[in-house]
């Protein structure tokens, strides 16, 4: 890893790097920063910070014509990551951060995709709107970054995943073309094409604008937690709760420190849900807890403390969790009640734990499906590689 320094942007003719001159001329002063490094270290030569879709498209076209590789970042990295293209360019999407319009009738917002979920939620809150719950680990993540990773890390039965709230996208394709889709909540016009961007880390295009579903802010929601004897019991209770039609704004479970109990916490969104949950819990005899650790670790205790980013996220049946629960004391789980549980933990996951998870049926990100080679072929076709 090499540390690099940012120099004041250089504009005008006569610069030593013709690519930088060209990008400067196209994108305007202040959008290209030359990176210099200590003697002998290699890494990208400049940081390009476009602030419109058209500027991204122009930059992508220039880079392509010049055969210069690029790497998308959402904030200038303090160190060059191992896969940073030597002699290439960082394409920094963090200036694509404007809110373009709000449609108060349809409750949709149009934003540039370099904006982070946390900042967007803050801006929406001022106008009385919300994206729904944004857990701490997604606050600093940009919308396009979440799509590139296919983040499915929001534990919300009521609002679903943030990346599923997209009604339309604008993206710059690897060839520099601009693809736009039409805004509608659902469609049947062939495959859902923007899904080509999901989980492919910008290889099939860089998302620059999105049209998202938002909601009106409701009053502060009550939080309720229960103690259950183990993961399987928590999962079963969560399922019955969902099957009873209760849809909490947040539902998350976490192992209780120093034992095998599991705390299931929910944030309710309607009074009717509250009443139904009270009846259900009483019928099953589950003890209420006064602390809501699982919720606090997802959304903070109100004192602004942030948790670490998840180290591993995977889909797992409850058996897999039981198998590794002792090894993953800080495991948190949601999507309870669906065929799979989503798990994350900020505890270190060693090779044995990972193997145990897979052995018990979990699907971790690295598990192969039959589609990898096809995914690579799609990317090659889009980038023009044969």
């Amino acid at each position, binding site marked *: 890893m090499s540390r690099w320094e940012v120099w004041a942007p250089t504009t005008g003719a006569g610069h030593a790097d013709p690519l930088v001159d060209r990008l400067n001329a196209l994108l305007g002063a202040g959008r290209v920063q030359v990176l210099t490094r200590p003697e002998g270290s290699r890494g990208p030569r400049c940081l390009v910070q476009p602030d419109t879709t058209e500027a991204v498209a122009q930059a992508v076209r220039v880079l392509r014509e010049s055969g210069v590789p690029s790497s998308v970042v959402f904030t200038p990295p303090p160190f060059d990551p191992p896969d940073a293209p030597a002699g290439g360019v960082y394409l920094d999407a963090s200036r694509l951060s404007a809110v373009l319009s709000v449609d108060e009738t349809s409750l949709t917002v149009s934003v540039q995709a370099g904006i982070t979920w946390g900042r967007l939620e803050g801006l929406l809150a001022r106008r009385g709107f919300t994206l729904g719950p944004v857990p701490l680990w997604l606050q600093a993540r940009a919308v396009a970054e979440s799509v590139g990773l296919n983040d499915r890390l929001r534990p919300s039965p009521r609002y679903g995943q943030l990346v599923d709230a997209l009604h339309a996208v604008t993206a710059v394709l690897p060839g520099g073309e601009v693809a736009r889709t039409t805004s509608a909540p659902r469609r049947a016009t062939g495959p859902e094409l923007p899904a080509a961007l999901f989980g492919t880390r910008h290889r099939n295009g860089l998302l620059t604008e999105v049209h998202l579903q938002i*909601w009106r802010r409701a009053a502060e929601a009550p939080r309720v937690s229960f103690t259950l004897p183990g993961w399987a019991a928590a999962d079963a209770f969560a399922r019955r709760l969902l099957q009873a039609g209760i849809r909490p704004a947040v539902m998350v479970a976490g192992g209780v420190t120093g034992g095998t109990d599991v705390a299931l916490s929910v944030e309710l969104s309607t009074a009717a849900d509250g009443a139904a949950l009270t009846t259900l819990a009483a019928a099953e005899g589950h003890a209420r807890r006064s602390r809501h650790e699982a919720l606090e670790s997802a959304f903070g205790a109100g004192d602004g403390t942030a948790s670490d980013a998840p180290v591993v996220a995977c*889909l797992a049946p409850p058996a897999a969790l039981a198998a590794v629960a002792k090894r993953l004391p800080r495991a948190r789980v949601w999507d309870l009640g669906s065929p799979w549980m989503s798990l994350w933990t900020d505890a270190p996951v060693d090779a044995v734990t990972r193997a145990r998870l897979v052995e018990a049926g979990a699907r971790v990100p690295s598990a192969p499906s*039959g589609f990898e080679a096809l995914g690579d072929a799609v990317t090659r076709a889009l980038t023009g590689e044969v």
Partner: protein
Amino acid sequence: MNSATVPATESAEHAARVAGLIDTLRARLGPGSVSTERPEREAVGRDLWPRSLLESFSAAAPGPAAVVWPESPAQVAEIVRLCARAGVPIVPFGAGSGVCGGARAVPRGIVMDVKRIKAIRRLDAERGVVEVEAGAMGELLERRLERAGLTLGHFPSSIQCSTVGGWVAARSAGQCSTRYGKIEDMVVDLEVVTGDGEIRRTPPVGSPGPDWNALIVGSEGTLGIITAATLRVHPAPAHRCFRGWLVPSLEAGFEVMRRTLQAGHRPAVLRLYDPLDTRMAGQKYARGDGDAPSVDPAGRLKTLLEGAGDASAPGARALRALIGAARLTNLAIDALPGQCLLISVTEGSAVEAQSTDAAIAAFARGVRARDLGEAPGRHWLAHRHDVSYKQSRIYRAGAFVDTFEVATTWARLPALDRAVRKALGPHVVVMAHFSHAYAGGCSIYFTFVGTGARPSDMLVRYRTAWKAALDAALAEGAVLAHHHGVGLSRATHLPAAHGEARRWYTALKGALDPAGVLNPGKIYGEAES
């Protein structure tokens, strides 16, 4: 020319390849799994796209060279490999209830009817999933789930004549989609045979990494043949509330629907009819004061549609006169009082069904809607599959009927509704209902009827009406289909609708179907003159 019409000259070399392929298929699958007999080829030669029917009045459609009935995913894979090697197109066929030409045969190609692959492989009530093979018929699957106290919650009007594979391939929506979602919301994972003849399984929904489910759902047989799907199922609802409302205008109805969905409620059914469709829906409630039946064009149209008789009968002649003068008839209908019927069915636990019903009631009262009680909702439920089967009498009377469903945001909905009506109005008599609502927008389901002096005139009118409607929807920034798919019916307009986004599809097609044999010519077509 669309790509499903016969090429002027068919090369002898291609014919020989097809013949060789059919021999190989017979040898590999056994004689009972392959047929070149005309009745069998005709039975799977087209779906229920009305244009195919209109065309068949003038000329017989060229059918496929053969039909194959694989019995297992492994056989599907083998057929795909053989066809890819021979360069012979394959059109997957579920139950042929599609209304867009998606399953229309490609001349000298093979039709693969998947209905023999129909097992329910796994039903896990506890985890709420069913894994079912693609050829399973919708009605039979739902009955099986019902016996286990479950429901898929997917009730297309065609449930008795459509398959799971067809639903997934065409992104279908059922009548209760507002609560249970469209089929894409139900898919957990899919088993697919891709164009290289490999059986693959998509990573389950929720997996980190690429979202292959979203790319295969809706691909209409052009990226792979779906052999099985794992779908979410739910406990059968314990309680239901029914209600009908008479809202003072379409806009007032939109307001009730929008507010309900944006407040986070999920009624099973929330269905708004425009003034004409309000009468067509068989309800008496919308008759405005002083709106005598004899001068009510909507009432007359309804009576004629229901009892026109064969083409030469007086009723049929009267019907053709009324819809032949579409512009005037539409104007007369526009002058009717604008009251609209809104039906709601809420379900789930008693608490949920009642609280959702109460929320809708509060929004409805806010627009001064009149409460019609339970009867309209109960009537709708009892007759919900009837309407589709009334269509053939319209054809017998010498007219045609088709539907066009689009979707957009709430803000654009009224303008889209007006624009498509205006575009269709000179050619056909048009009505609409609104039955799939979301927090962000809604679909519009237009039904239109038209006629012409001869079959060829009807076809011209039909094509003119469709082109006008698609142009208008495109100009309004709507998506051109909400749940019927593209097939051939919208393929002319998809290149313009998708623009550069089509590059994603082209890349997918090249990767998943390198030989280009899977349902060629569907989804993206050429503009018609």
